[in-house]
């Protein structure tokens, strides 16, 4: 079946692909043309970057970019460190309570912080962290998903390598750093891509805990900017939309295979 493809099917496949790209193509069209052409498609329409300039000047998008970059970096670094330590404990130590502890970790796969917004808001308020970037990051720093993925990877590390490192005098943390971490590199890449994509795009929780330009990530900034009350031009809003998704989109186009494989690994758990 892989070899033969009916021409009708090929046409259908391409048609579906074009339909699938249409919304995106439309966004780029509208962002790159004067407002008058936002709804009328004409090949003679002049191209312009004016909409981007106006969006950039009408809202603090530079600050939003910075906030998002700080946010995803903070989350990623925190997740990598915490997941590595926890996964190491689960993969290579036999200890009392490990079964229950692991089950309690897995609980977060089903009941994610995304649905615990009410109580997490109270917790963040009690900590006095409302309207800060760490407030957005905190509930996500311990990732059950990261622990789970790394534990699986660590378990496949050959025991001989561990013994060799021990003979050379490495302690538990030395073994983790010199043997396990280097061998788990593909897992780190996969987890990192998924984590960055997820938190670059995350919206509801940041919307709830932030209230100022200093803490807002791009997604929330875009929602505030595009709210109908602001009366901003449609073309300018689309330009802002394109700016919000551009970094991930460019990364995806450059590392397509990596992205698809990472999302796949992330999903099959």
């Amino acid at each position: 079946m892989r070899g033969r493809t009916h021409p009708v099917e090929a046409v259908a496949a391409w048609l579906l692909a074009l339909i699938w790209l249409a919304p995106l193509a439309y966004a780029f069209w509208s962002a790159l043309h004067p407002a008058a052409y936002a709804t009328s498609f004409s090949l003679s329409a002049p191209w312009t970057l004016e909409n981007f300039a106006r969006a950039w000047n009408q809202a603090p998008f530079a600050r939003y970019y910075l906030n998002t970059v700080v946010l995803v970096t903070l989350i990623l670094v925190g997740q990598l460190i915490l997941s590595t330590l926890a996964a190491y404990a689960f993969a290579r130590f036999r200890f009392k309570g490990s079964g229950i502890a692991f089950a309690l970790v897995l609980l977060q796969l089903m009941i994610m912080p995304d649905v615990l917004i009410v109580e997490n808001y109270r917790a963040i308020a009690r900590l006095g962290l409302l309207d800060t970037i760490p407030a957005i990051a905190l509930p996500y720093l311990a990732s059950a998903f990261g622990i789970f993925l790394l534990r699986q990877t660590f378990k496949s590390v050959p025991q001989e390598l561990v013994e060799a490192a021990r003979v050379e005098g490495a302690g538990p943390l030395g073994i983790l750093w010199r043997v396990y971490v280097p061998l788990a590199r593909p897992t780190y890449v996969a987890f990192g891509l998924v984590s960055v994509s997820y938190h670059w795009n995350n919206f509801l929780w940041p919307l709830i805990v932030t209230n100022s330009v200093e803490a807002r990530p791009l997604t929330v900034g875009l929602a505030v900017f595009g709210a109908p009350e602001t009366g901003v031009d449609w073309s300018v809003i689309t330009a802002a939309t394109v700016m919000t998704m551009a970094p991930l989109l460019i990364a995806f186009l450059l590392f397509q295979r990596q992205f698809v494989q990472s999302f796949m690994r992330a999903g099959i758990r």
Partner: protein
Amino acid sequence: MTDTAASLPISERRTQSQAWWNTVNAWLLLLPAAVLLVAFTHWPILATIRHSLFITRRNGTEVYVGLDSYQAMAADPIFWKALVNNFWFALGTIPTSITLALIMAIWVNRNMRGRGFLRLAYFTPTVLPMIAVANIWLFFYTPDYGALDQLRGLFGLGGWNWLGDPSTVMGCLIVMVIWKEAGFFMIFYLAALQQLSPDLEEAAAIEGASRWYTFRRITFPLLMPTTLFVAINAVINSFKLVDHLVIMTKGGPNNASTLLLYYIYEVAFTFQDSSYAATLTVVLLMLLSVIALIKFGYLDRRIHYQ
């Protein structure tokens, strides 16, 4: 779980005190993650249940009210509306996006010209922020000026307030979510298809089986584990996906598009009623737990034939 034997040598030969030392070390490694997990997952779950049994007076004191909030919830038509909407939202998005995902995966798996491009086109919506997607689609559905009404205009039809009409709003959101999700589900089918032995299909072809018959009797049953896996994840997603409501409809018109999580958000942060929001969250947690039980207790044992 499979290779516990491999991890034994670290501790097995050692004495009791070393086993104890092992436990201490392991818990020290776990500690940072454990503290945050307890603080932002386990504790909030318990606190949610507790808060659903109390109300907060205006002076800040909490009063135990038992199941009063649950009775109020049972009498709240918006709660039921949200629940029913969640059902239709799931039913509208999941079967269609799974079917599309399967078709896409089969196409992309072929030696078709430009299949790299096809995969790119199908998968791209997955990496976009929901909020950006909502912005783009919001404009498609804009009355008169939006792309949809312009298309209707070509056929001489008048404008229609797609998101402002209770009869069309849910359908519009469903179409958008299908577009966003199908490509994500595709990659799981693609992975599964690449694992299938080509011999099976060749044998079927030699036996003279039609392609539809081959798909229906061989390929599709072999993909069953993937289908169930994708379906479960899709159901979980359908409860979490509410970002678009914030800027597209705010749950309206007349709550026609509200979903449970969005209603929780509204009750907690617009109406400032955190006790009732906790009660609603308990329902959401129960629904997710049921899905978890089905997933871990039943499907995980069933879907792997090998």
